[in-house]
């Protein structure tokens, strides 16, 4: 492992309004590793993800990304930092009114001043990486759910992020498409040398891509370690989780 973690979470407590969802969560994520955050529904996976990408401020504790504490950043600094990250939302979160090409172009238009021909080539390259180069002019509503996720993935990697966050990448996809998406994520991780944080509760997906597992239970980190260690764990909840999936 590298010495400096890419993400450092210290004694994080967070939630919505007065409801505490996460309590005293601490974890570290290092460069080039794929960490799966898992747990049963309602355990706080998505809340943790929202804290990691700064969409939800913590009640207590801190989240640092590339050594910068998210809560201490002003808006400009936050946006600068987020350029180094990519986020793949559960349903893709593509803008429905514009084409796949235009969706992928958004970060380039907003954050860079590259010439249009290079932007075209870059968009093509990223669409080619996710196998959607022939669908550039389609609207999100004209392609399938799996393709929408791949298009969203192309958008999230357009600026070559150092870390990619993915919220339930396989949710709503058939096993073959989910498998292909996982393989795509792995190949992109190798090509772009990214760290990846994946929120999921799909065991098949975890087995395919995770280097390390963070298991959440009722807003607390119950376990961190490799998949092998998790599967041999005698912690009841973890045992049940893997048992029920097999």
């Amino acid at each position, binding site marked *: 492992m590298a010495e400096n973690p890419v993400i450092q979470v210290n004694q994080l407590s967070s939630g919505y309004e007065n409801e505490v969802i996460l309590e005293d969560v601490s974890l570290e994520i290092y460069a080039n590793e794929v960490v799966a955050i898992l747990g049963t529904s309602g355990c706080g996976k998505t809340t943790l993800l929202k804290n990691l990408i700064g969409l939800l401020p913590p009640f207590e504790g801190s989240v640092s990304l590339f050594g910068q504490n998210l809560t201490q950043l002003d808006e400009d600094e936050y946006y600068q930092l987020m350029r180094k990250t990519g986020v793949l939302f559960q349903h893709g979160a593509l803008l429905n009114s514009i084409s796949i090409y235009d969706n992928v172009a958004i970060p380039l238009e907003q954050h*860079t001043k590259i010439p249009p021909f290079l932007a075209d080539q870059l968009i*093509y390259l990223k669409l080619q990486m996710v196998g959607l180069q022939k669908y*550039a*002019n389609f609207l999100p509503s004209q392609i399938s759910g799996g393709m929408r996720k791949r298009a969203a993935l192309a958008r999230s990697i357009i600026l070559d992020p150092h870390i990619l966050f993915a919220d339930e990448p396989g949710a709503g996809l058939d096993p073959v498409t989910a498998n292909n998406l996982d393989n795509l994520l792995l190949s992109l991780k190798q090509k*772009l040398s990214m760290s990846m944080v994946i929120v999921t509760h799909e065991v098949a997906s975890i087995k395919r891509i995770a280097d390390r597992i963070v298991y959440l239970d009722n807003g607390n980190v119950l376990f961190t370690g490799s998949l092998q260690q998790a599967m041999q764990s005698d912690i009841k909840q973890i045992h049940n989780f893997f048992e029920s999936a097999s």
Partner: protein
Amino acid sequence: MQIETIYLPASLTVMHSRELLSKAESIIKLREKPAQINLDFSDVTVMDSAGALSVHHIQHQCAAKNIDCRLHNLSTEIEHSLKLFKIGDADSFEAPHKLGFFERLGHLSYEVYISIKDAIILMANISYFTFTAFFKPKLRRRGEVINQGVQIGVNALPIIALIAFLIGFILALQSAAQLRQFGANIYVADLVAIAMFSEMGPLITAIMVAGRTSSAIAAEVATMTVSEEIDALKVMGIDAIPYVIIPKLYAITISLPILATFANVVGIIGGMVIGVTYLDLEVLPFFNEVISVIRYKEIFIYLLKSVVFAFLITFTGAFHGFRVKGGAEGVGRSTTSAVVLAIFLVIVADSIIGLLFYFEG
């Protein structure tokens, strides 16, 4: 042989590619072109996909101008990135292109043709089910006519009362000064009554209802279309037009004449306030004058207008609702278009009916 060397910066990323490209371009475009350009990577520590594509672009530019482009001092990582971030078969990439004038004209004409065709089919369907669904209540959603009547009619009463009162008030106010000069104070009652019954009452009511209801119908139907509820009805063997649209049409057709009558009365009261306070008229003579001037023809016209407007408001809401494209953004677009078209059609229909009966005498 002239040789130019470009020393690439330490960070060759999307943020720096512009400078690199313009530097390379300025050398390539020189009047006395160099025979060879060397790209020196000795300082480069970071290169992303945009950086790699920039290097490939410079190589292509050089090749096109018969300049020998050589890469020097490449680390293994940089070499790997250059191989990795290479565009494949560019022919399969359809970059978005702007449509030319005739293409746009063609698209627009086709859209208009499809819209007119859809409108005619929908109008025919609504007309057919207006009668058939009346005799077959099972085709309609149960209890929906009353529910819609409350939403469209009862809930619109306060705003229509306020607007109608102000319209009657302003009509009387604007005419009072002129009529007073000729001692024709009592004719303010005639003016307000005729204006409200023939024009302002049904028109203002229809515009208000179009704003509230046409948008609501379009939003509801568009959301149902986007979320596949209309398809779900279809596969259950239920036609969406009698089930969703016809109850609304019945509710509007009943509500609109009642609302227009209400608006007429309130508008006349608004005029009466000016008559009593400014023109020294008394309440009873004012109302006697109103009753004397209103003929069955005025009543028939405003009732006819209300029924026609009701059909148009329902039709535009349904038309834009069923034609929605895309997701949430499409719903918003349908709603706006429905309101604009409903108000436009109401005013056009008002003019046509007004003209028809004007020449009838």
